[in-house]
């Protein structure tokens, strides 16, 4: 888990450099401070389960083995990216292919909340097709996005259908500039689930072990056919909504307090205490992630921009214009 979280952060740090060189097309959204929960929740899944991440779930992608190059290709809108430069950042899709043992990945569309009904359908569809039986779907949703009608309809339908779906609701204190108090009148985001009659728990999102523990329990019950559930994670968005946003609306004291709770540092300290790894081992991993991210970014830069001649291809079926499949990599560390 340490590696996946580190890698996520290294990828984003590399993206910041590319952004400064204006090689990133459009906006760049950081998950700084939230890498822990993204990784620890996805870590509770099988490598063949389904994920529906949002823009801040880079850690879910590294954990499921998405090759970093894929992410750089997307952010730089290159021809070899999964969307062939047609859609933004981590808007990537990987559907079940004959034989392939890869995870199902359905990246977001920008309309917040829409991924929840789709996640319910993926969970139900997999159950009907008995694909990789039993498949569990995991979807992440921001505090702000839980206010959308699509979230409500999708959660309620998943609950009634007892769909094998685990939803991770991220209270990172803000939706763009809007503080959570203007978003909902409940104290704990997981109470959103009370309206659907499904199990829900709140967890310290910056404590990776605690997050993994809750997520694993919810994933297990989903796989056992006990239906949908929601995990509320208490965390903090440590930067602006995107690079253009200096987030001056966030109280400094709040950031200071949360910076002391950085999930990666906390997990690192725990590993050292428990002597699971020495500081040296962990520094090595850090360096490895930095180098790996740099290499992958370099490879991605070699990919050309899309050919304008292809712009009209693939709107409908019947034209053989296929999108490149996502490449997955094994982690250098054995994963249970």
């Amino acid at each position, binding site marked *: 888990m340490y590696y996946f979280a580190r890698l996520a952060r290294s990828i984003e740090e590399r993206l910041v450099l590319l952004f400064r060189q204006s090689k990133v097309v459009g906006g760049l959204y950081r998950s700084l401070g939230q890498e822990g929960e993204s990784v620890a929740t996805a870590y509770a899944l099988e490598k063949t389960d389904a994920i529906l991440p949002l823009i801040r779930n880079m850690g879910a992608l590294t954990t499921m083995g998405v090759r970093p190059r894929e992410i750089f290709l997307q952010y730089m809108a290159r021809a070899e990216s999964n969307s062939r430069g047609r859609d933004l950042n981590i808007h990537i899709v990987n559907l079940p292919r004959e034989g392939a043992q890869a995870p199902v990945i359905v990246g977001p569309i920008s*309309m917040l909340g*829409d991924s929840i009904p789709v996640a319910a*359908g*993926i969970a139900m569809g997999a159950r009907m097709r008995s694909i990789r039986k039993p498949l569990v779907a995991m979807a992440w949703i921001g505090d702000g996005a839980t206010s959308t*009608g699509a979230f409500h*309809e999708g959660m*309620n339908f998943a609950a009634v259908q007892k769909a094998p779906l685990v939803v991770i609701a991220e209270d990172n204190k803000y939706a763009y500039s809007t503080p959570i108090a203007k978003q909902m009148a409940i104290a704990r985001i997981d109470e959103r689930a009370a309206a659907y009659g499904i199990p829900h728990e709140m967890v310290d999102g910056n404590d990776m072990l605690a997050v993994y523990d809750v997520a694993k329990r919810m994933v297990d019950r989903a796989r056992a056919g006990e239906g949908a559930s929601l995990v509320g994670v208490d965390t903090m968005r440590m930067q602006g909504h995107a690079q253009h946003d200096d987030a001056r609306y966030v109280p400094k004291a709040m950031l200071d307090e949360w910076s002391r709770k950085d999930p990666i540092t906390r997990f690192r300290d725990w590993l050292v205490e428990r002597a699971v790894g020495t500081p040296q081992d962990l520094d090595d991993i850090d360096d490895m992630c930095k180098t790996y991210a740099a290499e992958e970014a370099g490879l991605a830069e070699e990919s050309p921009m899309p050919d304008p001649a292809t712009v009209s291809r693939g709107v*409908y*079926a019947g034209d053989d214009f296929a999108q490149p499949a996502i490449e997955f990599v094994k982690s250098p560390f054995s994963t249970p």
Partner: protein
Amino acid sequence: MAVITYLEAIRQALFDEMARDERVFVLGEDVGVYGGAFKVTEGLQARFGEGRVIDTPISETAIVGAAIGASYMGMRPVAEVQFIDFIACCFDMLTNFAATSRYRNGAAVPIVVRGPCGGGVSGGPFHSRNPESFFLNTPGLKMVEPSTAYDAKGLLKAAIRDDDPVLYFEHKYLYRRIKDDVPDEDYVVPLGKAIVRREGTDVSIVTFGAMVHTALDAAAQLAEAGVQAEVVDLRSLAPLDRDAILETVSKTSRVILLHEATRTGGIGGELAAIIAEEAFGYLDAPVTRVASLDTPVPYAPPLEAAFLPKVEDVVSAAKRLVRY
């Protein structure tokens, strides 16, 4: 061969496709135990079980969203919108998620979203609309609307087998009012192909859905007046059959665009543009739209009658054109 209603033809298509392909399933409000508000899905749950005929909560966005998700996993969902007016409640999911999925990531969305459209039954402002033009400006969607029982069955089978999201509009006025011969054996009516319902040389009436019958009545009256009208039934609204449209215009040089949706912003505009751009040289008279008045759909019978396009409207428009 058997003579069946438009509604029964739709039911048979669902039944046949579910029997033919285990990936096909139906979801929507009251489609199961009750068999649908109009009984289109009657008997399906008894035959195929609750697992494949799913009664949903009142959640159009969840219905379509779940259909998209299930289709990603290899299923072939057919979602019912109880009255097509409520498709407005899943406009986002259809136009932003379903329509763009293939273009963005090469992820096919083989779903069908079907429901009863149209007026003439005192349904009022919220149970009578014709929504085709809401979706016409969104590439990635397909749309069809049958005017006969034969097409109702053949188009629905084609829509279910199609690899793109298809909106299937069934005109509720036709459900039990029209009957025609439908083969028992398997057949499809290909998407994107119009059909000439009546040959004529003097004026073309390009239309679809319930208005095809209005057009045919008008054509019959016109014949008595010595005017030979050609009636073209579009059947598919996206993609449009440009060849068929241009062919009839080149033949008659006079065209009436007839639709039940309100006039301004209706599909008649797109048809007029295609003709004005590509058949300008053939035209001997102005393109003429006959459509509903630019108001919400009124409820009281005398008001709705005044609102909807009538046979006389088509007849007088045709006479104006031939005199032009």
